[in-house]
Every structure is written in structure tokens, then in C-alpha cells.
């Protein structure tokens, strides 16, 4: 592979992983709220969260562009205060990937939280553990399989995301160009062989993620 291709691979792997990590705390928090609390209109919040999945990526991309563009509410604020540009930079890629994979993480984590025997959390509390400690020492580890599953889905989705990314970040070689964008381009040009080579690389990245999560689960089982 050429240096340029390596660069794309590296950027894609890195930004996909980062987006997964960045959405993790928010995703877990939202999932926890959905799993542990009943409130009116919960289904509505849930639906809203799954919107990036429900909308075609262009629409999501367009909305993000409007929000994070310099004329958008958030983008304008960031630009004016921090002189930080989001769209058409790697940050835009990060946001697009994060938003697109968010619902996958939330749903997986939520199911995992709901499956936990509440007795375990209760007993941890009788031992003096506060909510935060209970979450990190009991809830999250017990939901590990579901959380990891959600992270794998998120990471895979990030690798494959195309529609929102190109809308929000454009396809700027060396800056925002991901594997997916390159594959898209090759497909359009009819360079199928090249597209397949890049697909192979994506697949390897996905494999590494899948294998790592399996390995993590095995570690935990083994340690017990």
C-alpha cells in the first residue's frame, strides 16, 4: 500500500476508535437512564436517540452541518469563542461517526443493563457503595458483554459510515478522507479491484475489533 493509503487506514482506524470511545460515557449514561428509570415519554426519548439510524445519512449529515457549521448554533459558538472549526475537519468526521453509531451503543448497553439482577446492585449499596461506585464496580462490569457488543457495532458502523461523513466533513485527502469515502470513490470510478483492496483493509480493522472484544471477554472469564 502507498503511504497515502496507509495514512487513510490509520486515520480511519483512529477516528473510528476515538468516536466509539468518545460516545461511550454518554451512551452508557443514556442507556442507564433508560434502563433504570421509568418516566413518561421515555419511548419518545428512545425514538429520538435512534433517529440517526432512522434517517438517511444525508439528512443526518445535513442537520449536523447546519448545527456545527460556522453559521450553526454550536459551530458558530465554538468558532467565535475557541476559534475551533468542526465541519470539514477531522472533528467533523468524529462527530458524524459518533452520532451515527450512538444509537447502536445505547440500545446494546441498555439491554445489558436491564438484564442485570437488581439484587446485586442493592447488596452493593448495603455495603456502603454509592451510585457511582455501584455503577463502575457492579453495573458496568456485569453489562460488559453488552457494552462491548455495542462498542463493536459502533466501531464497525463508524468504519462503514459514509453519507453523513461526506456531508459534514467533505472528502479532503489527507484530512477527512476515510476508507469508506475512498471505497465509495473507487466504486464510482469503476475501480472495483482497488475498492476491494480497501474493503479488505476495512475488514481487517473490523476483525481486530471483533477479536479484541472476544479476547477481553475470555480474559474476564479466565480471571474468575
Amino acid at each position, binding site marked *: 500500500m502507498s503511504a497515502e493509503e496507509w495514512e487513510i487506514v490509520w486515520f480511519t482506524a483512529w477516528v473510528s476508535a476515538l468516536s466509539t470511545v468518545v460516545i461511550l460515557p454518554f451512551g452508557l449514561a443514556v442507556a442507564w437512564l433508560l434502563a433504570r428509570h421509568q418516566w413518561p415519554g421515555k419511548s419518545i426519548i428512545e425514538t429520538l436517540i435512534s433517529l440517526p439510524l432512522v434517517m438517511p445519512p444525508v439528512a443526518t449529515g445535513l442537520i449536523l*452541518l*447546519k448545527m456545527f457549521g460556522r453559521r450553526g448554533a454550536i*459551530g458558530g459558538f465554538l468558532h467565535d469563542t475557541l476559534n475551533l472549526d468542526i465541519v470539514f475537519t477531522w472533528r467533523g468526521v468524529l462527530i458524524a461517526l459518533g452520532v451515527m453509531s450512538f444509537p447502536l451503543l445505547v440500545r446494546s448497553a441498555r439491554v445489558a443493563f436491564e438484564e442485570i439482577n437488581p439484587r446485586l446492585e442493592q447488596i452493593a449499596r448495603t455495603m456502603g457503595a454509592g451510585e457511582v461506585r455501584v455503577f463502575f464496580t457492579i453495573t458496568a462490569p456485569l453489562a460488559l458483554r453488552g457494552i462491548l457488543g455495542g462498542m463493536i457495532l459502533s466501531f464497525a458502523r463508524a468504519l462503514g459510515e459514509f453519507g453523513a461523513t*461526506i456531508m459534514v466533513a467533505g472528502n479532503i485527502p489527507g484530512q477527512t478522507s476515510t476508507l469508506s469515502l475512498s471505497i465509495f470513490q473507487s466504486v464510482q470510478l469503476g475501480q472495483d479491484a482497488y475498492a476491494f483492496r480497501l474493503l479488505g483493509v476495512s475488514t481487517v480493522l473490523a476483525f481486530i475489533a471483533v477479536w479484541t472484544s472476544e479476547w477481553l471477554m475470555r480474559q474476564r472469564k479466565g480471571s474468575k
Partner: protein
Amino acid sequence: ATPTLDAAAINVFAAASLTDSLKEIAAAYEKQTGDKVVFNFGASSFLARQIEEGAPAEVFFSADEAGMDGLEKKGLVVKETRNSRLSNSLVIVVTADSMVTIKSAKDLAEPRVKRIVLADPKTVPAGIYAREYLEKAKLWTSVESKIVSTDNVRAALAAVESGNVEVGLVYKTDAAISKKVKIACEVPAGDSPAISYPMAVLKEAKEPEAAKRFLKHLNSEEAGRVFKKFGFIVRN
């Protein structure tokens, strides 16, 4: 409608930029003739690939010659029906309230223009033409690093709207899509490469006669008026 392609209908695969004009023309045509026109709009390169894979199309209306050439080489086009009558021009757009004044393409090379958005200069016709133009004007090397490419026109316009990209280079017909952008300057017809929209009947058409009839209509005076209305240049 039954969820299968109606054999009696004319399936037209047309570039997305033709959507509005073709819809209008087809509506009138259907009324006149009773033929049914079914569209599949999309990026020209996709449509070409779909036709290659045996998509059931009667007519292909591409946004650039390259797509049509590919199909013709593969023997999928009825050669004698191919013609290119429609053309377009490139314009430089800025946001409607932009302070940036662009008088000509040369200004694009100036440092105050930090980013330029195009449709993908490798794959999307509008982008390809834009690149060819900039290359011809010897500007490409100086602006290449500023290029942000998108996969469709709307994305290019939205990029300009967002304020993060100062200018965009798009078709004149597309500039009207967004009310938040305005045309800063037009690329003179002589400077730009020959933009043309070829159309042809396809070999595997199930209704070749109906297709030819529709193609004829597209070449008619009546259709030409509609195309003009939407900003296309109609050559005679």
C-alpha cells in the same frame, strides 16, 4: 402500482440534476401520449453501473459523456439514438450575505479563499467539469489543496451555506436550489469545458419504440423550453 416494473412503461435513468425539469416534461408527455414514464434519478456514475449490471432501463440520460461512453463501449447503447443537446454552465457561488467578492476564477487562488467546495472532481460530472476548467485556467495546482469534495450538489451548496467554505463551484442550474447562496460570478461559456448531457436508448430496452418516441420528445422544442426554464443551455 404493482411493485414490479411495468413492462409497458418507459424506464428513464437520469442524472439527479435533471429531476425537476424531466418530471415536468414527463408529466406533459404522459398526458399527451398515454405512455408512462418511470424515472430512476441518481448520480450518473451509479446509473451507468446499474445499467451495466442489467438494470431494466429504456433510456439513459447522463450528466456527462464519460458515463455514456462506458456503456457504449460495452455495447449497451443504441448508437444512433445517442445525442447531446443539453448543456450547463459553471458558476461560483458564495453565501447570500457574503462579504467575499469573487470577480473571476482567478480570485479563487487568493489566500482569502481558504476552501472551495466541488462535487467530487474524480467521479461526479459537475466536479469533473469544474476541475477541467480550473486546469485549463492553470489554477488547479494552486487551489487543489483548498478543495473540499462532496458527493452531490446539495452537499456542496450546504457546505457554502455552513459558512465554513467560502466558495463553491457548481452548475448554474443547481445554484438555484439554495436560497442562501448567490452566484458571485459565472464561468464564461468559452472558458469552461464543453459540458453536455448525452441521452440514448439502451440496447436491452423492452420498449425500444416507446423509448425512441420519448427521446424524440426530449429533443423537441417543447421540452427545450422547459429545460431552458430550469437554466439549462439548450443547443439546437
